[in-house]
């Protein structure tokens, strides 16, 4: 699994085929999320989609993002989703349609939207800068590892967005608690 420093090539050989397998399965499970009738099935397909995308991140030498993806998305958000699905699960199995009434127009719009974008993404030629895979692991000129390199960037150059993100999480937590409360009864 070597990266070629030649222009534009990111993955070669066996790693390339691995990417194709992961991508095909990630897209397949994503389609299953949208098409599944039961929301629990959708949640489980989404979980596997997240894990497959995390595998793609590892192939792209983004180990920190891949690990955070598994921890936060697969381990946190999907557990939250499953809790809520179980909480509001209705016993009576109603024969309700999966898609809203406008699904055919939406599909048509999507296909029309897809074709030009796919053409551009497939044929666009990017500038021929050689990709330097070691730059993703360097800390102050020495090879250290992806997590160290990301941490070096996160806590120095991007400290302000980091602090803003933590305030955002605090606000989201307060908001979720307030929204989840039952209506407060008046106390005499």
């Amino acid at each position: 699994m070597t990266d070629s420093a030649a222009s534009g090539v990111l993955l070669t050989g066996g790693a390339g085929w691995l990417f194709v397998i992961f991508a095909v399965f990630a897209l397949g499970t994503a389609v299953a999320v949208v098409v599944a009738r039961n929301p629990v099935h959708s949640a489980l397909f989404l979980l596997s989609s997240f894990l497959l995308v995390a595998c793609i991140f590892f192939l792209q030498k983004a180990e920190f993002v891949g690990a955070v993806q598994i921890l936060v998305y697969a381990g946190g958000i999907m557990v939250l989703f499953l809790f809520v699905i179980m909480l509001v699960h209705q016993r009576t199995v109603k024969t309700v349609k999966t898609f809203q009434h406008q699904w055919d127009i939406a599909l048509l719009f999507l296909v029309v939207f897809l074709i030009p974008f796919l053409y551009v993404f497939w044929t666009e030629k990017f500038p021929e800068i050689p990709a330097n895979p070691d730059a993703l692991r360097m800390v102050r000129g020495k090879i250290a590892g992806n997590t160290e390199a990301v941490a070096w960037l996160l806590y120095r150059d991007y400290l302000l967005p980091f602090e803003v993100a933590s305030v955002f999480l605090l606000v989201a937590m307060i908001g979720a608690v307030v929204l989840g409360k039952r209506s407060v009864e008046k106390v005499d």
Partner: protein
Amino acid sequence: MTITLNHYLVVSFLLFSIGLFGVLVRRNFLTVLMSVELMLNAVNLNLVAFSQRLSDLTGQVFAVFVITIAAGEAAIGLALTISLFRQRRTLNVEEASTMQG
């Protein structure tokens, strides 16, 4: 098999459009939220692909922030779902809608 940036972009865009379709047409509100997570995931894929291509870690840092925001947004969305269920006893977006026409 040689993979270039274009392959990553195509996969990311297809993932995004699948999520977009889910947001537009699913009846269950929870599945709509899951489709939003799919779209955010696709954006992350795009960011990390460019980060690898340009040998710049900024894309990966941005992806970490996107994951953070997605987590907060999922929490709020789920709290809203519970609130919606308490008010209208249904998760069907067409039934819960009070808009005329």
